[in-house]
């Protein structure tokens, strides 16, 4: 060893043999190996199986949700959607990004605008709640919720180095977008016994709201059953499944709601697809606390210099809010506005299999669905799929949830059903 001449190199190297020195490299390797193993194994071990809870019927569970009178709650909600729409901001399930990105939250959703059929012309406040909902339609996002009785609620969308907050405090609604440092202010309508809310916005995406809307729409085309128990955010919960009945062509397999076993609060809401992949839409608490949230969370004073848009000005710019239906499926932003395109709109079938049929507005479609040139047709073939049926031929543009078909005579069929479902509806109609 060359360094033994360096006196005072006190035995750290001098007295050990090469074999022993090589052993030292085992330390970093072991540290890395232990970490990798624990990252892989600990979650697997921590999943200790579903909790044992007393039996409950579906009716009792639905009643439990309805009777739930949780007034105070704060927590973190993770929402994700994988609708298979190419290019939706957040990249949830487009071909390029595979099965949804991890942790890529908080993109500024400039790409959202083209999907808003009802987007008005002109300038808008970045703190506009309705636009925020659209932005949340793709990818994964983290929301934080705090509720203190009917008078005070807040919901914020956690973004990278920014946050969008919607604060309701006794008749006043504030929205604050920290990224652009702009705020939106509205007085909640007075005298309404209903819930006071400004417009469709991100608040529709908490598990509780989603479950309420869904259960309100349950009718005899729907089967409701209890599917065992689960654990959400460290709390024991029952799993309620709301599934289409006799709807072979529905793209929705079931809607699953995890209901807190103790107080009936919905803790997770998942729209599961018939194709067996990741949930189409999922909203779940990762952290929930039923204590009283801090009072400071519900007060908002716009910082000096912050641009504040008042609701009146905003409403004038916005016009009637774009069509947002009530049900989980129909609630997809932008779908309702299709009805405003003109032409005859009619609903074929019922319940989960219903398909919207939009007859071609006179003069809009010329001959057939082709674009005329072979290149354009080739491009169209890549985006869509040709189908044939008794009705003739058409092209289907598909996502995981909603499929749309344009027939050669210009009629559009649209619904949360598979391609076969659309063809069947077209054959019937």
């Amino acid at each position: 060893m060359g360094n033994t001449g360096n006196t005072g190199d006190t035995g750290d190297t001098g007295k050990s043999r090469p074999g022993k020195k090589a052993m030292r490299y085992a330390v970093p390797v072991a540290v890395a190996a232990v970490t990798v193993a624990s990252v892989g194994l600990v979650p697997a071990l921590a999943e200790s199986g579903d909790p044992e809870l007393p039996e409950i019927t579906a009716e009792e569970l639905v009643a439990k949700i309805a009777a739930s009178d949780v007034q105070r709650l704060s927590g973190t909600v993770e929402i994700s959607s994988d609708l298979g729409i190419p290019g939706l901001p957040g990249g949830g399930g487009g071909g390029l990004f595979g099965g949804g990105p991890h942790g890529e939250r908080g993109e500024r959703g400039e790409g959202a605008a083209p999907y808003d059929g009802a987007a008005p012309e002109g300038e808008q406040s970045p703190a506009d709640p309705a636009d925020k909902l659209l932005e949340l339609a793709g990818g994964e996002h983290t929301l934080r919720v705090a509720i203190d009785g009917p008078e005070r609620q807040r919901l914020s969308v956690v973004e990278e180095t920014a946050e969008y907050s919607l604060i309701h405090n006794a008749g006043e609604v504030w929205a604050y977008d920290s990224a652009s440092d702009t705020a939106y202010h509205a007085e909640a309508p007075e005298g309404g016994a209903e819930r006071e809310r400004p417009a469709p916005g991100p608040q529709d995406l908490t598990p509780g709201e989603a479950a309420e809307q869904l259960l309100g729409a349950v009718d005899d085309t729907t089967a409701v059953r209890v599917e065992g128990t689960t654990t959400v955010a460290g709390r024991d919960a029952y799993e309620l499944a709301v599934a289409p009945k006799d709807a072979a062509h529905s793209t929705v397999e079931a809607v699953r709601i995890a209901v807190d076993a103790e107080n009936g609060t919905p803790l997770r809401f998942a729209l599961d697809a018939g194709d067996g992949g990741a949930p189409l839409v999922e909203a779940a608490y990762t952290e929930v606390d039923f204590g009283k949230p801090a009072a400071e969370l519900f007060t908002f004073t716009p910082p000096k210099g912050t641009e504040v848009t008042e609701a009146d000005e905003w409403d004038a710019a916005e016009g009637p809010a774009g069509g947002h239906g009530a049900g989980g499926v129909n609630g997809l932003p932008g779908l309702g506005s299709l009805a405003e395109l003109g032409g005859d709109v009619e609903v074929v079938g019922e319940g989960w299999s219903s398909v919207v049929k939009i007859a071609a507005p006179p003069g809009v479609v010329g001959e057939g669905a082709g674009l005329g040139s072979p290149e354009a047709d080739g491009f169209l073939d890549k985006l869509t799929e040709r189908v044939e049926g008794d009705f003739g031929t058409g092209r289907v543009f598909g996502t995981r949830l909603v499929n749309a078909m344009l027939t050669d005579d210009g009629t559009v069929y649209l619904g949360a059903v598979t391609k076969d479902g659309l063809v069947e509806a077209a054959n019937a109609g």
Partner: protein
Amino acid sequence: MSPAEPATAASEGAATGPRSAPPSAARWWWTFGLLRSELGVTLRRWRTLALLGILAALPVLIGIAVKVETGDGGGSGGGEGPAFIHQVTNNGLFLVFTALAATLPFFLPMTVGVVAGDSVAGEAAAGTLRYLLVAPAGRSRLLLAKFASVVVFCLLATLVVAASALLVGVALFPVGDVTLLSGVTVSFGEGLLRALAIALAVTVSLLGLAALGLFVSTLTGSGIAAMSATVGLLITVQILAVIPQLDALHPYLFPYHWLSFADLLRAPVLWDDVLANAGLQALYVAVFGSAAWARFTSRDIAA
């Protein structure tokens, strides 16, 4: 720590015997002395001072740019630009956060890469490493002192950016109660405390790279090679981090949680990512720190 440890203690005891100090006390004295001398050497370098000077100048540039841009009454440009830049005009304290967010992806880690990469290899290149090893402190503790001085540099670099930004912010913009990202207003004092916490979080963010740089530094006898390799690694990792196809790899890259310091500006504070960042940096320190130790204690020091 190692099988050679008893031998170390014994030989050290013999070495310090005439001074009649207990071996353990002597060991600590040496470690402290080493750390002090290491720090002195690091911080007295012109290169280090120049790096800190650049870091101090950046917030001035950002501050003046924001002032000029908004001074003529120009409106806000949507959500563009570095994080927090839109809040700067309302509250000078936000310049601290903007400056840290702007320097964290590249400038801060680059200076850390230079200092960490140079720490061992620079001494080897200058031929002073063997004289350092003459000190009866042992290589393990020498390495520890080197790492500690790099950590101190990380803290110092972050504080220089923060302090410079704070001064510029106070000088150019109004200050007062701070509106957090969540829309909750806190006092300026709490805002300052949060700024300090953020500076610490940013320091922690740099530790993984510091350990990586130290390891690279033990591999080569050329300071320039170690510095450029470390900075090159930083750039490579930053490029990998934006390639969406490498999604699965991203959570293991050291910059993955770097922007989590912004979570300290929420109400209530969202700790998940901050802690995940600390864990990831600790992992890098453990793996590359021990790799540096394995290399440094077993290699031949010829220069």
